[in-house]
């Protein structure tokens, strides 16, 4: 097995699953019916993506762990998602701005991953890029509506952007795993990814009258399993059934 490929695939899968889990918390709590359905549908796409990625990670690892083992029996320190995905859902502006930043990232990442020399990741990316492009169209419209809406909606969207921005640096962090994947032609280079991402998010934020914060202190640690205080609560809820009834299936 390739330890770096396992680690890299796990990162992709964990980002998708934790983002999907947070979004799914809105199911039944959306501000109105159409948006309730919209957020839940996006969550479904992300969880579906996570299933494919975690199943593949299990295959790469070669120890017989499947998608469910990886999703439901890993402890906090074994999770590799970026911190931005695990932050509590906050208000609708916070969820929307976070999803917009992540959709733009996923759109760029998976477009490049379509050219990955790893055929399975390239295949998953071909599906994922179309979905993220659709999600981005949806969250982009909402960012405009909230940012350039009322004084209250602008205030909330700006506050969300200020709180979230320091967490975006982690999306472009490099380390030996990332470098090895880049060298093998499996992962795209983080530097060009960051430029493309900025190019995607800046114009809509500007049109929405939202100001990108200046220099901020980057919040990182997720890739090494160092999570925020919110992660344990999220896992407790997500993993409860498998922890209480190990191996239970239906």
């Amino acid at each position, binding site marked *: 097995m390739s330890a770096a490929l396992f680690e890299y695939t796990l990162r992709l899968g964990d980002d998708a699953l934790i983002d999907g889990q947070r979004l799914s918390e809105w199911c039944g709590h959306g501000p109105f019916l159409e948006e309730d359905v919209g957020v839940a549908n996006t969550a*479904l796409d992300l969880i579906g993506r996570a299933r*494919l990625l975690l199943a593949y990670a299990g295959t790469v690892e070669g120890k017989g762990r499947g998608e469910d083992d990886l999703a439901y029996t890993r402890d906090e320190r074994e999770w590799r998602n970026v911190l931005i995905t695990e932050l509590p859902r906050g208000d609708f502006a916070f969820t929307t701005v976070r999803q917009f930043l992540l959709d733009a990232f996923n759109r760029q990442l998976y477009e490049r991953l379509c050219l990955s020399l790893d055929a399975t990741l390239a295949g998953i990316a071909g599906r994922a890029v179309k979905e993220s492009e659709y999600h981005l169209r949806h969250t982009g419209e909402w960012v405009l509506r909230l940012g350039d809406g009322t004084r209250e909606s602008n205030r909330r969207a700006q506050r969300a952007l200020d709180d979230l921005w320091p967490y975006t640096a982690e999306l472009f962090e490099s380390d030996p795993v990332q470098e090895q994947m880049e060298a093998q032609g499996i992962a795209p280079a983080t530097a060009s990814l960051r430029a493309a991402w900025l190019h995607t998010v800046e114009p809509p934020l500007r049109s929405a009258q939202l100001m990108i914060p200046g220099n901020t202190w980057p919040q990182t640690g997720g890739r090494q399993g160092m999570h925020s205080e919110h992660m344990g609560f999220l896992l407790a809820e997500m993993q409860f059934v498998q922890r209480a009834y190990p191996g239970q299936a239906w």
Partner: protein
Amino acid sequence: MATNGPTPDIDRARDIVSRIKDPEIPVLTIADLGVLRDVGVEGHRLVVTITPTYTGCPAMKAIEDDIRATLHGAGYHNVEVRMQLSPAWTTDWIEERARRKLEAYGIAPPRPVGSRGPIHCPQCRSTNTECISEFGSTACKALYRCLDCLEPFDYFKCI
């Protein structure tokens, strides 16, 4: 019938599988949708290849189960359902005949990928329509409304 013995009757199997309906849109078969990619034989095993529409679409599991159950019922016991991700599914794979069936069922068919043409109301054919929500009752649909006959309708998302 074909278990581990003789080579499975491929033409009959292909005919049976291509008539399986989509669980959410029962006017379309999985062949109409472009989900069914191939029916083949490897040794004594029948291999059915399908491509998911959306990665999170819950119907994919139902389709897989339907294929297995239908083939078992027809005497095919050595069956593998294989998920093929690449090339990624696109609404352009839905053929003209299937588009007409969708519309008759009350779902506006997807535009060709990249097209910006109008979306027709499946009830009165008016092009005076607007999007209510980018997402609808299933992963593959958006919600629209006709501004002439005032009926809401599902639009099959173009992807």
